[in-house]
């Protein structure tokens, strides 16, 4: 039996009822429309960014302090009176990390920080501030192994600083002033070198890092 040519098959297909291909075409259209809409909704219909220069908050820079904020320790509520604010940053060095619970880069970075925690103890404090809900942040804690220094309710701080991607790492001196700021996930080796220098009291303001990647925002809050 000779091979059926493309043209012959095509003619046969055209001669068959419209339902012959309709269910397959319908399936494809349904899949593309359904999941395409979900993707388009996330990618294209984001809340419009404020366009005027006056309304754009200034990004954090070395030498400045974080704007006023109130974080809530994980496992507590705002009513418990155990809020964490700017005044708690004074008197010790602080490694302040702003994360989102669903961000994979934040997960990796904080899992690494969890292993680095013993080196921080006695020399500074780790503060991981999550812009996600308490429930999501609890899941984040379980995934990263972080058992202390986790806070939520950081969205107002992210908005006030104009931060548009996570993770963010701030190294704050004893007065609460920013000595180093970086957006995006850092290489563990570089991060370790940076934190070692910082905790030893060295100047880290010009520390050069290679960003792996960060979780783009618009999509933060």
């Amino acid at each position, binding site marked *: *039996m000779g*091979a*059926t*040519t*493309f043209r*012959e*098959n*095509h003619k*046969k*297909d055209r001669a068959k009822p419209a339902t012959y*291909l309709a269910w*397959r*075409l319908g*399936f*494809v259209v349904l*899949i*593309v429309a359904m*999941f*395409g809409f*979900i*993707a*388009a909704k*996330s*990618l*294209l219909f984001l809340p419009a960014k404020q366009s005027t220069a006056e309304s754009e908050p200034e990004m954090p820079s070395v030498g400045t302090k974080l704007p006023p904020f109130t974080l809530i320790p994980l496992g507590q509520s705002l009513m418990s009176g155990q809020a964490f604010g700017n005044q708690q940053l004074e008197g010790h060095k602080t490694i302040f990390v702003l994360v989102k619970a669903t*961000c*994979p880069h934040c997960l*990796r970075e904080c899992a690494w920080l969890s292993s680095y925690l013993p080196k921080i103890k006695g020399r500074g404090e780790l503060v991981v501030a999550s812009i996600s809900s308490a429930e999501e942040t609890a899941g984040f804690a379980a995934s990263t192994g972080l058992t202390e220094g986790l806070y939520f309710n950081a969205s107002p701080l992210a908005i006030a600083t104009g931060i548009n*991607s996570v993770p963010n790492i701030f190294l704050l001196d004893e007065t609460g002033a920013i000595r180093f700021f970086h957006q995006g996930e850092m*290489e563990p080796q570089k991060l370790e070198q940076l934190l070692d220098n910082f905790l030893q009291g060295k100047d880290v303001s010009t520390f050069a890092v*290679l960003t*792996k*990647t*960060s*979780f*783009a925002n618009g*999509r933060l809050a």
Partner: protein
Amino acid sequence: MLLTRRNITLGIQMILGLMLLGTGISKAFTANEFLSSFEAYKMLSSAVAPYAALSVILAELFLGASLLVSLWVRWTSALSGILFLVFTIAIGSAWQRGLQIDCGCFLGIPEPVGPGAVFRDLIFLLMSVWVWWETRNSVGITEESRAAA
């Protein structure tokens, strides 16, 4: 005979279809994360990136679903090949530029750009070419099977 040329082609076609549809759906549900990975390649401006990312997701959904139901197999396998070629070039380019970023190929499975990712995409490219070549004389595998029967 189970291991006929036609059955092997059908198997490859189904693997490609499932893989493309699966990654397309996972990317649709984590579109922001995919966009983040996409932007990390630093190949497109941030204004264009969301549209390009959406195009990739739509292409994967369309090609995956079409291959699964044997709709226009010859053309969809050719387009899949082109898509994998683009992926290979993008990953190879990021690797050559020394970018230490996630591939973003299978969301939820972190994988750095590098020779492994390039090799895997080349395998998918070859699979697409195989399906395209084997269906060169037919509209689709199912149509040809029907004609043969």
